[in-house]
């Protein structure tokens, strides 16, 4: 089922908002990681971990799922399809992978946020050590999101075998319909 141009435009705005919002939330997360790494103040370190947990669960995770959902609607509601073009398929795979790693990493963030909330200064070293992993996760996550964004804007050429089969079938059907129309109009 393909959407009308007006509905498609609206769906695109929603999808873009969630997707760009996801990138923005990851940048905010990275800013907290940098702030915690550059500060010697223990309170800043603890506050950063608590803020990272909030940004993760209340911004990044919901935006990630909203982006995936609206992306599915966009691809299934247009002629691009979900499995017909390589750029759509790769974007989908990368998005699902990113969400999987995100959910897994958020367990770690929640763990450290819990440690930070306990206010025991003996854990400061552990909290500082955990930042390295967050820098890696958020940095690579941002890179993956930017790759997906580039794919979505440039839409590089290339159809999957499934897409080619679908296209051939559609062409055959339209040719068949044309021939039938001609035979009906010429008794």
């Amino acid at each position, binding site marked *: 089922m393909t959407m009308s141009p007006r509905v498609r435009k609206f769906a695109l705005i929603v999808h873009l908002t969630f997707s760009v919002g996801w990138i923005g939330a990851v940048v905010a997360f990275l800013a907290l990681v940098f702030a915690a790494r550059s500060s010697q103040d223990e309170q800043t370190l603890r506050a950063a971990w608590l803020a990272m947990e909030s940004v993760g669960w209340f911004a990044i995770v919901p935006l990630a799922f909203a982006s995936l959902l609206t992306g599915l609607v966009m691809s299934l509601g247009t002629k691009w399809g979900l499995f017909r*073009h390589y750029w759509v398929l790769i974007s989908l795979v990368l998005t699902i992978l990113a969400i999987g790693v995100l959910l897994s990493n958020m367990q770690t963030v929640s763990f450290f946020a819990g440690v930070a909330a306990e206010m025991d200064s003996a854990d400061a070293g552990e909290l500082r050590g955990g930042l390295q992993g967050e820098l890696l996760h958020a940095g690579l996550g941002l890179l993956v999101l930017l790759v997906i964004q580039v794919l979505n804007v440039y839409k590089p050429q290339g159809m999957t075998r499934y897409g080619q089969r679908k296209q051939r079938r559609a062409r055959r059907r339209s040719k068949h319909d044309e021939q039938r129309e001609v035979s009906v109009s010429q008794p």
Partner: protein
Amino acid sequence: MAGPPPNRDTVDDTGVGPDRGSTTSTPRWVKVFGIIGIVVVLLIVVVMLVGGGGGGHGPSRHAPSGNAAPSSVTEVQVPSGGELGGHTPPSGVPDHGSQ
């Protein structure tokens, strides 16, 4: 005079329609993507094996050896003991005991 540009709404947001790209072979950029993907996956596996992470994500990687990681934040245990973990009061606090 050139006419108005075609309505992009009828094509798509970049002016490129979905009906292009009917070449049968896999495009070069997909192959490059695949190679990069395989290299990245291998790198991650090597880093996990060398780093001793056991290939797992989550808080268990950060738990001290011998202790299982808590399954939730609420289960995080505060180190117990009456000696304040070897902590000394801040330098600004006067030591009344010596007076």
